[in-house]
């Protein structure tokens, strides 16, 4: 019993450590992939092939002066990055990342690879990721700077608009699996059609996956939807007035949110830790590979697609994505009932 608790705490600690480092790895990956796309080398001086660049960056940021504009709201200005980063970490808490395992016979009873296994996991992910908006809006408002305020306002409007289509797209998956627990949704995708096509919801919900993908990029404020920090209009948007570590916490939250979005997409559409010819004990490797691929796609999209205009963004979200998601849900429900009722 003692050992079991220790192992579970170890899993949480490891996941937390991986999330902290995910942002460092992603910053480096982003710069390296951007450089490759633009036919450059990218960071190359710090460590072998520039591998230690993120470490140098965070040390440099730690040594910088913390500035707070005189007009800014003292407490909210500090609280905003804390909210953003806490919401990002907590949103990952209910996302499972592997099947049950005994660690090669170390434990008598298997433990579940995940931080918190609750039966409403998906709802928790929604609730907590929407809390992340508060971090950005408060940062924009507390700075008392025009660029920051506009960035924060735009961000809130964008995130709430795309949250609708994103949640409606996921409702179709909930409908198919009949559960809100991410672990049960993954387990419902085990097995094959005709013996070789894996039963992933991607193949039942291609439109849903596309809607989720687009809305996910908009939710995490990534290009081509990075209006909260559109450089040529808003300098840097909601984090214009931030410096030092308080600034660093915002990109950190953004990268962790990207990991969470990719992990949720993997669990809901790509079969989680199930993969053809991979035994389920090693499923976490398949899971990491899928999340890694989705993160690569995030960066790939950013350096390939030009930025939208804000009015185009709002029109696309409300006039195309939301109706498409609703129609997708109704068709899914009708087909589901035709085969199951």
């Amino acid at each position, binding site marked *: 019993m003692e050992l079991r608790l220790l192992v579970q705490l170890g899993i*949480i600690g490891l996941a*937390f450590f991986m999330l902290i480092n995910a942002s460092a790895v992603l910053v480096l990956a982003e710069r390296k992939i951007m450089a490759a796309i633009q036919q450059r080398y990218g960071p190359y001086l710090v460590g072998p092939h520039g591998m230690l660049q993120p470490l140098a960056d965070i040390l440099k940021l730690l040594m910088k002066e913390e500035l707070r504009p005189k*007009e800014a709201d003292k407490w909210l200005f500090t609280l905003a990055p*804390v909210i953003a980063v806490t919401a990002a970490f907590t949103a990952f808490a209910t996302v499972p990342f592997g099947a049950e395992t005994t660690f090669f016979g170390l434990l008598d009873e298997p433990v579940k690879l995940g931080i918190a296994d609750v039966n409403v996991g998906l709802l928790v992910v929604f609730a907590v990721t929407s809390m992340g908006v508060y971090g950005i809006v408060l940062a924009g408002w507390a*700075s008392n700077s025009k660029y920051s305020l506009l960035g924060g306002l735009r961000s809130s409007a964008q995130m709430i608009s795309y949250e609708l289509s994103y949640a409606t797209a996921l409702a179709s998956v909930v409908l198919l699996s*009949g559960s809100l627990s991410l672990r049960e949704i993954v387990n419902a995708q085990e097995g094959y059609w005709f013996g070789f096509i894996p039963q992933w919801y991607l193949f039942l919900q291609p439109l849903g996956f596309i809607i989720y993908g687009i809305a996910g990029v908009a939710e995490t404020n990534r290009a081509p939807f990075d209006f909260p920090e559109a450089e040529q209009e808003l300098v840097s948007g909601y984090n*214009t007035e931030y410096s030092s570590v308080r600034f660093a916490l915002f990109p950190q939250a953004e990268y962790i949110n990207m990991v969470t979005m990719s992990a949720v997409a993997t669990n809901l559409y790509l079969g989680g830790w199930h993969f053809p010819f991979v035994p389920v004990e090693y499923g976490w490797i398949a899971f990491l590979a899928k999340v890694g691929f989705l993160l690569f796609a995030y960066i790939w999209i950013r350096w390939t697609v030009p930025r939208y205009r804000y009015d185009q963004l709002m029109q696309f979200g*409300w006039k195309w994505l939301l109706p498409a998601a609703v129609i997708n849900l109704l068709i899914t429900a009708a087909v*589901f009932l035709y085969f199951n009722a």
Partner: protein
Amino acid sequence: MDGWLGFVIMSVLGVGFAAVMIGLSVLLGPRNPTPEKLAPYECGMPAVGDARERHSVRFYLVAMIFLLFDIEIAFLYPWAVALRDLGWAGFVQVLTFFCVLTVGFVYVWRKGVLDWGPVARRAGDPVQKKAA
């Protein structure tokens, strides 16, 4: 880990991480503020007026429609989980619900709430006409 303990641990770790990082930078960073450094950034110009002015009414409108639609989606989740038991009767009920909602959505659309920027101007939007 079963239950909510992991969730609580994770949020405590998150707050702790942010607090430690901010604390470290306060300890390590230099501190010599000047009036210029503490002024809000406005591309080198002295800041004019307060930042918290009035802004476009569309942000409020979007927030209001969002509330309606978000509640609708919150209703959809239990329905989606239970559809297997509800059968076609449940489907028809939600279809009716969506029809009512669509009427409201079309009204909002026709009123031009979802049009931002240049498109709104072309359509002769009353809010923008008055401003011009």
